[in-house]
């Protein structure tokens, strides 16, 4: 049967099913294929806090969303065009994310009484009007999968586990993508271990693809052309992987050994996992007994001359509070990666949030200033981690690099830098005993010397008590304390001389500046672009350097009549801006454990500019 091919600029697809249904794998496979063909894209995995909640329940639903296109893709999409739902629970929990008129592909075999009951449904959503506004394709995915494997004599349970590849195959067909890359993946992953698994998955993948090709239900395929990306080598990358690579790259460029002291915590653990694989790079990963030991081991390693890092999420950062104060006192380089998640307390461990900013900047006893950066997109995590290491080493200071659950688990194509392009990270350990003073300072950066054990003649003692401003000996002198408190603050301020000025996307002055930080980059940019397209006088400033702020930030802000600060928290950056620059910024704060939606930001823009919404 002849099928037509339509070209789309961009499309958003959401895969949803049971935790056991392999939706994360399906999504990742689809993403990799789409990426390799040159589309720009952005993804959002969305999985439950339970490891494998009972099958069929709504709280066991695992989702994976991808937006890809030939345009500049900034977010995983506010609303989906297509929802692939593997069971009733997945359908009902996700259908509200579909745009009106969107397409649903369901595994109709899963709409059994039992599954309806597990999802707490009293009627079948396929029939009761729930999906009335959408284009619904009911596909007997389970049966079709089973028949594809008919002759292999496999257990029903096993057969059922492969059905995600059917969905994947079907989507490849629908979006006119080759299955080759997934074929290769299946072969590499399973062939040697278990050839039967490989065979079954391959068959089902193809069955899905062929089903699209042959069945009459689907009449149109869609084509998404490669995006206009700058030339270069590309790969698809998740934020947590990018963070890990940023640290390794910084170690190599600085000539230091990378030491990671960490304690597992969602959603940061993957950084530890990634780095623990890289032993040939001399990377030492130390899974400590808790977060306090993790950061303390990193402080020890830094003292001994390693590029030391610690990775965590909110509750872990809370536990590191006291030790970070020590690192501030010792003035040792230390990179702290905090992958933010929903709080407070244990909160929403698998969800995203931006609510650790004030903790990072201000949450320590005493005056304990340090440098805080953030990443804006999954790929930007590489740059942020690298930059954190560079500043830490140059200024002899702890640096907190904030990412979040969405950045850590989300993915996008990344133009892989050449190693030679990376900013140099010069390190010179103190060597000369002549006139050596542990707390003498570089006149420009105010950094103290890094004098590591093993260096003859530089034996010295440092600690958490206040220190004489030159010798580093314990000092209780009142004036010295005042001087040291102010010098530590000044040193952090001087980092502003070493970082780029704040950029504005859009005009440098106008009615409204939307100011954001971190993972809201894409959503804000989409919203601002869209408002600008409608000739609104609105620009976007996204702050990567949060402590200290770029030197021109005050000026940037004062060039606009209004300042809007959207954040996934209850108003944190906005406090810093108002306190420092006395600008009457207003906030837009939605704290749902989800990325902000471009649409709602645009709505907030319109509210301020007095335009029509809707």
């Amino acid at each position, binding site marked *: 049967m002849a099928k037509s091919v339509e070209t789309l600029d961009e499309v958003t697809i959401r895969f949803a099913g049971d935790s056991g249904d392999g939706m994360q794998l399906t999504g990742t496979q689809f993403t990799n294929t789409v990426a390799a063909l040159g589309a720009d894209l952005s993804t959002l995995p969305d999985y439950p806090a339970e490891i494998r909640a009972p099958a069929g329940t709504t709280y066991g639903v695992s989702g994976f969303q991808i937006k890809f296109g030939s345009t500049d893709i900034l977010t995983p999409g506010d609303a989906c065009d297509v929802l692939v739902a593997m069971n009733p629970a997945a359908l009902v929990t996700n259908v509200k994310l579909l745009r009106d008129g969107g397409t649903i592909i369901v595994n109709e075999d899963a709409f059994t009484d039992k599954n309806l009951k597990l999802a707490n449904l009293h009627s079948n959503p396929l029939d009761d009007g729930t999906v009335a506004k959408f284009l619904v394709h009911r596909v007997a995915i389970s049966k079709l999968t089973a028949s594809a494997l008919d002759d292999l004599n496999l257990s029903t349970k096993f057969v059922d586990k492969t059905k995600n590849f059917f969905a994947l195959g079907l989507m490849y067909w629908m979006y006119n993508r080759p299955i080759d890359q997934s074929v290769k993946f299946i072969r590499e992953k399973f062939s040697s271990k278990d050839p039967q698994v490989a065979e079954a998955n391959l068959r089902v993948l193809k069955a899905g693809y062929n089903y699209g090709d042959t069945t009459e239900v689907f009449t149109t395929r869609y084509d998404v052309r490669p995006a206009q990306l700058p030339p270069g080598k*590309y*790969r698809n990358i998740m934020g947590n992987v990018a963070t890990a690579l940023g640290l390794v790259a910084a170690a190599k460029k600085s000539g230091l050994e990378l030491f990671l002291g960490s304690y597992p915590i969602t959603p940061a653990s993957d950084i530890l996992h990634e780095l623990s694989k890289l032993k040939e790079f001399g990377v030492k990963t130390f899974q400590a007994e808790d977060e306090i030991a993790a950061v*303390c081991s990193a402080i020890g*390693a830094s*003292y*001994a001359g390693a590029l030391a890092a610690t990775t965590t999420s909110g509750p872990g950062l809370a536990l590191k509070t006291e030790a970070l104060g020590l690192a501030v006192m010792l003035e040792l380089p230390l990179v702290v990666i905090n992958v933010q998640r929903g709080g407070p307390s244990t909160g929403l461990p698998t969800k995203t949030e931006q609510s650790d900013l004030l903790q990072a900047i201000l949450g320590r006893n005493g005056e304990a200033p340090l440098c805080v950066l953030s990443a804006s997109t999954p790929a930007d995590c590489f740059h942020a981690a690298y930059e954190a290491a560079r500043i830490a080493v140059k200024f002899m200071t702890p640096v907190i690099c904030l990412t979040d659950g969405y950045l850590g688990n989300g993915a996008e194509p990344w133009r892989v830098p050449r190693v030679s392009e990376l900013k140099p990270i010069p390190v010179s350990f103190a060597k000369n005993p002549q006139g050596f003073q542990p707390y003498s300072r570089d006149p420009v950066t105010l950094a103290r010397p890094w004098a590591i054990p093993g260096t*003859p003649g530089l034996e010295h003692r440092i600690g958490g008590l206040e220190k004489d401003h030159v010798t580093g000996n314990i000092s209780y002198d009142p004036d010295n304390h005042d001087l040291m408190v102010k010098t530590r603050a000044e040193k952090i301020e001087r980092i502003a001389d070493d970082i780029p000025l704040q950029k504005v996307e859009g005009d440098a002055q106008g009615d409204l500046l939307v100011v954001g930080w971190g993972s809201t980059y894409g959503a804000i940019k989409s919203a601002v672009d869209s408002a600008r397209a409608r000739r609104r006088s609105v620009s976007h400033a996204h702050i990567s350097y949060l402590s200290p702020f770029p030197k021109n930030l005050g000026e940037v802000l004062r060039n606009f009549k209004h300042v809007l600060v959207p954040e996934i928290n209850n108003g944190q950056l906005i406090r810093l801006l108002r306190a420092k620059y006395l600008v009457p910024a207003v906030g837009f704060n939605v704290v749902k454990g989800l990325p902000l939606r471009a649409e709602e930001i645009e709505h907030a823009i319109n509210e301020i500019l007095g335009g029509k919404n809707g």
Partner: protein
Amino acid sequence: MAESVEAKLTIKDFQSDQDVRWCPGCGDYSILAQIQRVFPEFTHKRENYVAVSGIGCSSRFPYYMDVYGLHGIHGRAPAIASGVKLANPALDVWVATGDGDGLSIGGNHMIHMLRRNVDIKVLLFNNQIYGLTKGQFSPTSQLGQITKSTPAGVIDPPFIPVSLALGAGATLVARTMDRDPKHLQEIVRRVEKHHGSSFVEIYQNCTVFNDGAFFQYTEKETRDDNVVYLEHGKPLVFGKNKEKGVHLNGFTPEVVDITTGTYSVSDLLVHNEQDSTLAFILANMIHNPALPRPMGVFLAQDRTTFEDAMQGQIAKARAKRGQGDLQKLLDGEESWTIS
């Protein structure tokens, strides 16, 4: 970069220029002195020693040693020291800590470090009190002890530090005292040789807040009758005239007189440093006040150190995959080119 002519180090080389600020008469002075006396005997260069501590009177130790030193935060010395040692296994890393620092707030780091067998030498200055904060009870304070925070007496049964270390799987566990300089020196020599975590409990007199807590073990007049020195392969003999010994009845140690003819030296328990059960029996002797207090090495076992295992995995990975090509790593396995 080794200097060609190495002058032999002396005690002076280990004395820093800082005034020692402990209270007059504090047992810490002796501990410091013995260590400064013994260190010159060792083979390390001075720049390769690192002393790490937490917070407490005892934790001021690093300031007074003219080696690299890190005075950390309360309880975290084992974790900081682990980072130092793992980052540079060539360093000789010592931890000075107190009964509060090392066993109260820092108990977890301590047992985990011991379990891992990182080659770090822990000197735990046990004065059965919080000195620096002026006299609250610690996890080794005795039941009923009156302290600032227990005006009606301590109700927490104390840890036996040696038992705790054994239970955690430590590979070298020892006990000594501030007021027995020779023995203290001997133990310091011994742990320097040990490849793995060492845990040394040092009975230390706090003159101000817990004066005399250990006098029955440390003072000339009473020491011989109340202390038994452990020596590998030797029977447990003690007493002013070596007239008493420890005999094992089942698992239960008893004091016997070896001069009356009923028992002879050959009936006595013979110490075996490698036997962890014996070590535990010796540690538990504390429960019976009729028994002498054992001093010396309770247990010393050989086990791969954590840092050796870590370096081993790196070496293995490099043998297999080379030194690691950063560009290849960044490019990843599935990349594409846009031109």
